[in-house]
């Protein structure tokens, strides 16, 4: 376990992107990286995805697994609509609104019934999926692109769940609610154009 020195690990992480992006990738690798970075480099997506994990952890079981399961399942339906060329209205607006609503729910410590939380997450997931799905048919390798963006999305949920575990402590609840408020304000910024999504 000596090998897992936190400072060394963080230093390695800091160096990793430089190595990873030093070479351009083609084919499967290119498709995967393109899909993986699609949700990660869109701050509006990041805010909403992390909020889903945070809210799941905040609500506890069974929301902890249900919300991160409902999101990709319904997101795939939205993605399929995008792939099939079926337009949805105001996609970017709803994505920004998802950050506001989910962030506000966490900040206000709302604990709605499980089915209400699932429906709220599912409704927003359709729009997030649609945004990714429209780019899927143009991807060099659709499998790699789909795998990349589903994995990227899922990892952000897991990051949210991991941060949400702080709610086990009283001070952690305050931090998580504070993060919810930050996400909600960021959503307002995306919606009004103060922040670039």
């Amino acid at each position, binding site marked *: 376990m000596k090998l897992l020195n936190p400072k060394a690990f963080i230093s390695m992480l800091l160096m990793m992107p430089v190595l990873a992006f030093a070479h351009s990738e083609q084919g499967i690798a290119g498709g995967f990286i393109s899909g993986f970075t699609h949700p990660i480099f869109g701050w509006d997506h990041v805010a909403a995805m992390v909020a889903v994990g945070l809210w799941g952890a905040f609500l506890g*079981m069974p929301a902890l697994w249900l919300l*991160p*399961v409902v*999101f990709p*399942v319904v997101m795939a339906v939205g*993605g399929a609509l995008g792939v099939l060329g079926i337009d949805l209205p105001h996609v970017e607006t709803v994505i920004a609104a998802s950050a506001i609503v989910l962030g506000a729910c966490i900040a206000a410590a709302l604990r709605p019934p499980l089915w209400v939380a699932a429906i709220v997450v599912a409704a927003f997931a359709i729009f997030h999926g649609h945004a990714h*799905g429209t780019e899927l048919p143009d991807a060099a390798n659709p499998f790699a692109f*789909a795998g990349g963006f589903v994995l990227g999305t*899922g990892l952000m949920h*897991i990051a949210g769940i991991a941060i949400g575990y702080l709610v086990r402590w009283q001070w952690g609840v305050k931090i998580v609610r504070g993060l919810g408020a930050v996400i909600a304000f960021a959503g307002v910024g995306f919606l009004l154009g103060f922040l670039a999504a």
Partner: protein
Amino acid sequence: MEVLRHRCFLAIAGCASWLWPVTCLAHTPSKGLQGFYTGALHIYSEVPLIVAFMALGLLVGQNTDIKTLRLSAAVFFITILLSSVLAGFAWIEFNPQTLAFALWTVVAVVSLKVALLPNWGRNISVLLVLCAAAVLGQMTLPDPGPFMSFAVTMAGSVSACILGFLCCVASVNLLYERFQLLWQRTIFRIFSAWMFAISFLLLAVQYTNKLS
């Protein structure tokens, strides 16, 4: 399953899997059996097939009832054999696009069931295994050639499918029984939801390609 819970098992399995490729690739295949290895490797080089094995592993491996495990394995073996034989020798076969569509549909349904209701509906699980094996059996079909070479290659493909199925089921079952913890079941569910999302999106892509 007791042996799988033994502390040495993971160490032995790790060493064996580390040594295995070296041993395997150290020798060239016996004369006349090259087709067997070609057929076997063909299965492991197809990403959709690997995803299908993983989905089946998550579906079947989360059963703790030994009877269900045996029934699912028996259904898989018999169906994949029948499907391959019918496709190979009776020429009841479908075109590759239809098969790919069918495979992603089965993977999507299996993944959705595992994500939402992993321990519900034993008969439905067995039925899904049957459907998956029927599609996989069709996908093991080698290119036409002399009878013996064709049969040997097909035997390799079918053996690889059965091995892939067993490995995935055993791995999931090992994890399921070894760590009977909530986080591990949560990870299985989330992973299955991801697989559903990927397979459903690829179904949509294939449908769009079909339309265009």
